[in-house]
């Protein structure tokens, strides 16, 4: 466990393999909610929280339930169920404890259940930090940190995109590419510029 390792995870999760622009996870929410900055921010914060928490939970499940009982093929089923339950639970807790926060997140929390980014991080953590069914050293910290960084990358892409799309409202664009098609073309140019981070070496 070293600072350099964490830095590598940070750079690659936020910039090089950005969850939206390079891995294409969570695209549905990305094009649907990025029309204005405020909802985009709410969604991003909710995603960041859930990716971090689900990284923690799924690591424990994989390490202490699936590996000892030799049932790692149940990974998909168990992870998706746990994530769905967790999101429901968080929603209930927030509703009870802090109604203003609940109004801020609003409908975006339940949407996260089927957000590919959350489930994708869980699977990615297992693929990267478990080798032949054994956890590598400090894999727990790496997993949690990667969950947080993927959330950060999601936030970065969402904020950039919503800023651009808010300004696009004042532009005169061809009718055929209005909304979805244009959002994808913009995302493509953004992804192209993120390609520049590929040259980073440590």
């Amino acid at each position, binding site marked *: 466990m070293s600072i350099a390792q964490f830095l590598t995870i940070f750079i690659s999760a936020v910039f090089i393999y950005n969850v939206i622009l390079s891995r294409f*996870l969570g695209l549905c929410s990305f094009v649907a909610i990025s029309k204005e900055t405020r909802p985009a921010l709410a969604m991003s914060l909710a995603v960041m929280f859930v990716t971090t928490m689900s990284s923690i939970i799924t690591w424990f499940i994989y390490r202490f339930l699936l590996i000892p009982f030799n049932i790692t093929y149940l990974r998909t*089923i168990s992870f998706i169920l746990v994530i*769905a339950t967790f999101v429901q639970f968080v929603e209930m807790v927030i509703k009870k404890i802090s109604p203003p926060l609940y109004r801020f997140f609003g409908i975006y929390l339940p949407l996260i*259940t089927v957000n590919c980014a959350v489930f994708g991080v869980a*699977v990615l953590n297992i693929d990267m930090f478990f080798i032949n069914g054994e956890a590598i050293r400090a894999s727990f910290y790496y997993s949690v940190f990667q969950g947080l960084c993927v959330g950060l990358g999601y936030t970065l892409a969402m904020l950039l995109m919503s800023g651009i799309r808010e300004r696009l409202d004042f532009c005169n664009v061809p009718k055929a*590419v209005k909304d979805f098609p244009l*959002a*994808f073309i913009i995302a493509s140019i*953004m992804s192209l510029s993120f390609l520049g981070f590929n040259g980073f070496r440590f």
Partner: protein
Amino acid sequence: MKKFVKEFLRGIIRENPTFVLVLGLCPTLAVSVSLINGIGMGIAATFVLLGSNIIISLIRNVVPDRIRIPCYIVVIATFVTITEMTMKAYSPALNRALGIYVPLIVVNCIVLGRAEAYASKQTVVNSLFDGLGMGVGFTLALILISGIREFLGAGKLLGHTVIKGFEPMFVLGMPSGALLIIGLLLGFFNVLKNRKA
């Protein structure tokens, strides 16, 4: 019989999951680097759609309304696991190429969307044809996108060089190329739709 054909064709053209409903784009963009990956992903997703639609439509009167989504997810996840294990056993190369996007079929919006919007309300046979149609529509969309990307991005189709001396545009093989192609295709289909209207 005519009705079933209609159910089947609806998923291919009028309600094409990729170009009309704009659902389930994550795997569409990520795996469409080459035609063979696109076809593999399409077949896997079709199998999951077909299986989950049939089972969900069978249990639609038994499952309580309040816990239906978790039940549907378990059914879908089961089929995804079957697909994953089969692919690992018979086609390890394809499994490596598709990577984490095989387990990710479970969060593909099309599958849960069809379960919730269609299979939970319709008869088994209708759901079967709907699942098949949606799956084929998804596969055709994947073939179109991955065909364009492989042809222009690598100058090949199914791994064979098509035109000698063709200088490939590498950017189309990269993530940004996928986003560009889908954006332009969506725009193109909008033009067709507007002209018809």
